[in-house]
């Protein structure tokens, strides 16, 4: 075969068919060939380029210091231009699938072109590496996603482990107290002093209640996680719910000498929700605040109408929240201090339940804190939508004297309630229903009133709170029933309580009340109960 002909064929092949960019220069770096691939991708025709100085056609090569590689090539040295360190040799566009690379990623090799011992020029070979770059990008993304999924799974596992440890510890603690006292009671049944007996019963009751609360929280969490929590939606008066929740927690606050301030706007519109769950939300926020507030501190509860939302704010002067923990405060099983030596008990479910319940109500909750030691503020908002249904209910509220509700017009009601807001609420409902109201703040005042009021001023019915700070509603009815029937001993009575279990109801009835209404007070239920109690007493 004639070699020069074969060489020429080979050169033509490179020029026409190579799947790479190939160009050559002479030893003065003037372009001597420019293949089809380069014409296609660079938009510069061979006729434009061949014969001209390379660094004049592509001045950018000099600006980026790449001209040095051409001088090295003329000295016999080959160089590699990597994509990651240079991006590209010559600016060209490319597309891989959906991916448009404004600058085609390239790898280039710049080598001397030698004839015998002499370097007569340079050869540059350019590879388009965009496909490789795209697949490495994809690979890296997948590896990162896997890594993230693995980290998240490991973290979830760790949090569950910690939670299990906390759970066993937290459930054991009250159990120890219950078991301990039960043992003492069974061993010393006979010679037990009344004082010790009452301590034992109180302790068992308190600890069993704590445990029951935890188990309720656990069950609620499980229900929510399984999507099985059902809400009994109805128009709810948040004022009543808030007051009821504060009422329940008042003894805890008293015991810790925490001042409970409140600024409650009675004009807040109703929200659509499950009254028990709404109360649970406020409870949890309050008990969380109480838990982390030192004795002598303050908790401030606000209720406001903000545009079309009802906003409940619980602000405490407690230990505050570390900024690092703040984003995780509503996460299930998370506690700022999960160590076994931590001071505060609890499962770390309360705030997670708050968020989940709030969200099930279409509301939002957020927490803020200026940092450790600077108190925390929790803000919950629920939409107050005046749907036709809600409007109807508003009408009912105004129409407590309307059809379907028994009349208590001109009935004289004696209200006993130590909480000012709860008292005001009862007064407002009863006044709306047309009743005449005498409202007092303690058992002693109530007894005084019953004993000494002139006959015309004697109440027709008693409505009393059960859980009052000093003497409770049980004490009041006991004293009252001890009076002669015509001196108030037979007055019909309605108990209002925040403890709404069936046991509470039967205990109230057994103590001498005719009817029982649970907080948050539903106006229609209260008026109906009062009318019923009066009717029964007159039978």
């Amino acid at each position, binding site marked *: 075969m004639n070699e020069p002909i074969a060489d020429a064929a080979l050169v033509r092949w490179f020029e026409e068919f190579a799947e790479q960019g190939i160009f050559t220069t002479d030893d003065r770096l003037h372009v001597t060939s420019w293949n089809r691939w380069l014409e296609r991708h660079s938009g510069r025709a061979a006729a434009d380029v061949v014969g001209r100085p390379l660094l004049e056609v592509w001045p950018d090569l000099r600006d980026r210091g790449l001209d040095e590689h051409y001088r090295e090539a003329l000295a*016999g*040295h*080959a160089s590699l231009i*990597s994509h990651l360190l240079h991006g590209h040799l010559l600016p060209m566009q490319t597309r891989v699938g959906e991916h448009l690379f404004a600058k085609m990623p390239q790898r280039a090799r710049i080598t001397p072109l030698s004839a015998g011992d002499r370097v007569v020029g340079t050869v540059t070979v350019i590879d388009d590496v965009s496909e490789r770059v795209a697949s490495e990008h994809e690979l890296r993304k997948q590896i990162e996603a896997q890594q993230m999924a693995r980290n998240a799974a490991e973290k979830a596992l760790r949090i569950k482990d910690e939670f299990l440890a906390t759970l066993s510890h937290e459930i054991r603690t009250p159990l120890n107290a219950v078991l301990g006292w039960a043992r003492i009671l069974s061993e010393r049944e006979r010679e037990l002093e009344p004082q010790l007996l009452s301590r034992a019963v109180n302790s068992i009751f308190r600890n069993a209640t704590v445990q029951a609360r935890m188990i309720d929280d656990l069950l609620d969490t499980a229900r929510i996680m399984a999507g099985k929590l059902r809400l009994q939606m109805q128009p709810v008066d948040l004022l009543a719910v808030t007051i009821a929740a504060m009422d329940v927690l008042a003894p805890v606050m008293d015991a810790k000498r925490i001042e409970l301030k409140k600024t409650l706007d009675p004009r807040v519109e109703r929200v659509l929700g499950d009254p028990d769950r709404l109360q649970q939300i406020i409870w949890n926020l309050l008990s969380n605040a109480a838990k982390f507030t030192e004795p002598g501190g303050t908790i401030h509860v606000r209720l406001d109408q903000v545009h079309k939302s009802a906003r409940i704010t619980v602000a405490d002067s407690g230990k505050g929240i570390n900024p690092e923990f703040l984003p995780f405060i509503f996460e299930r099983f998370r506690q700022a201090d999960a160590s076994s030596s931590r001071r505060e008990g609890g499962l770390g479910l309360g705030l997670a339940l708050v968020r989940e319940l709030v969200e099930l109500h279409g509301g939002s909750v957020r927490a803020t804190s200026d940092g450790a030691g600077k108190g925390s503020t929790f803000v919950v908002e629920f939409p107050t939508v005046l749907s036709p249904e809600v409007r109807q209910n508003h009408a009912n509220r105004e129409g407590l004297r309307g059809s379907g509700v028994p009349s208590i017009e001109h009935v004289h009601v004696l209200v006993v309630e130590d909480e000012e807001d709860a008292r005001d609420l009862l007064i407002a409902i009863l006044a709306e229903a047309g009743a005449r109201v005498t409202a007092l703040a303690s058992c002693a005042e109530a007894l005084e009133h019953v004993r000494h009021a002139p006959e015309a001023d004697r109440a027709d019915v008693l409505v009393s709170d059960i859980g009052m700070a000093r003497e409770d509603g049980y004490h009041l009815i006991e004293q009252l029933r001890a009076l002669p029937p015509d001196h108030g001993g037979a007055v019909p009575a309605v108990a209002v309580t925040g403890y709404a279990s069936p046991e509470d109801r039967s205990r109230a009835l057994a103590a001498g009340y005719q009817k029982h209404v649970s907080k948050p007070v539903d106006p229609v239920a209260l008026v109906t109960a009062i009318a019923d109690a009066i009717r029964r007493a007159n039978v």
Partner: protein
Amino acid sequence: MILTAEQKDALTELINIGFGRAAASLSRLTGHRVQLEVPQVMMCPVGELSDALRPYIDGEIASVHQVFSGPVGGDALLVLDQRSAGILKELLTNEPALPLSIDASGREVIAEVGNILLNACLGMFGNLLKVQVSFAVPHVTVEGLEAVVESVIVEREELRYALVVHAGFRLKNSSVTGYLIIVLSVASVDRLIRAVDMWESGR
């Protein structure tokens, strides 16, 4: 063939000049200050190369292999253990390292670094010997030490020597260690050492 203390010092100084040029190129290229520690040099017969390197470098190795030819010819390699290669690539490009076996772009960066370093050193030898040395385009492999050494021994029966240069890269408060291996025939080594002696005495 044993280098005298003076020859060792002179070689160290010469290679250090090449390293200085390579470091300047790498700094310019990456926009970060890249330094190369003063090299440590030793010479050993190629047959003893595995034993000489094994204490320092182990496991899978990324090696940049570049053949050079001309009046003085041989093989030149930059070898880094895989971890160091990954770190070096990450430091130079700010891209998190993937295992080099699946990271073609990463291997390419290592190849370019090897290219810069080897060109600087070999170019310096060429100047010293006043001969033109030509280098081929570098290629990278990821394999064990034995295979790397095998690749420079194979096909050539003649006794050859390896100049092993410890190369410590320093950048962004980190350091990465690699080795430069330049394999030469006995004749080439003789020529090089004579040139080094002349350079030393001519100063």
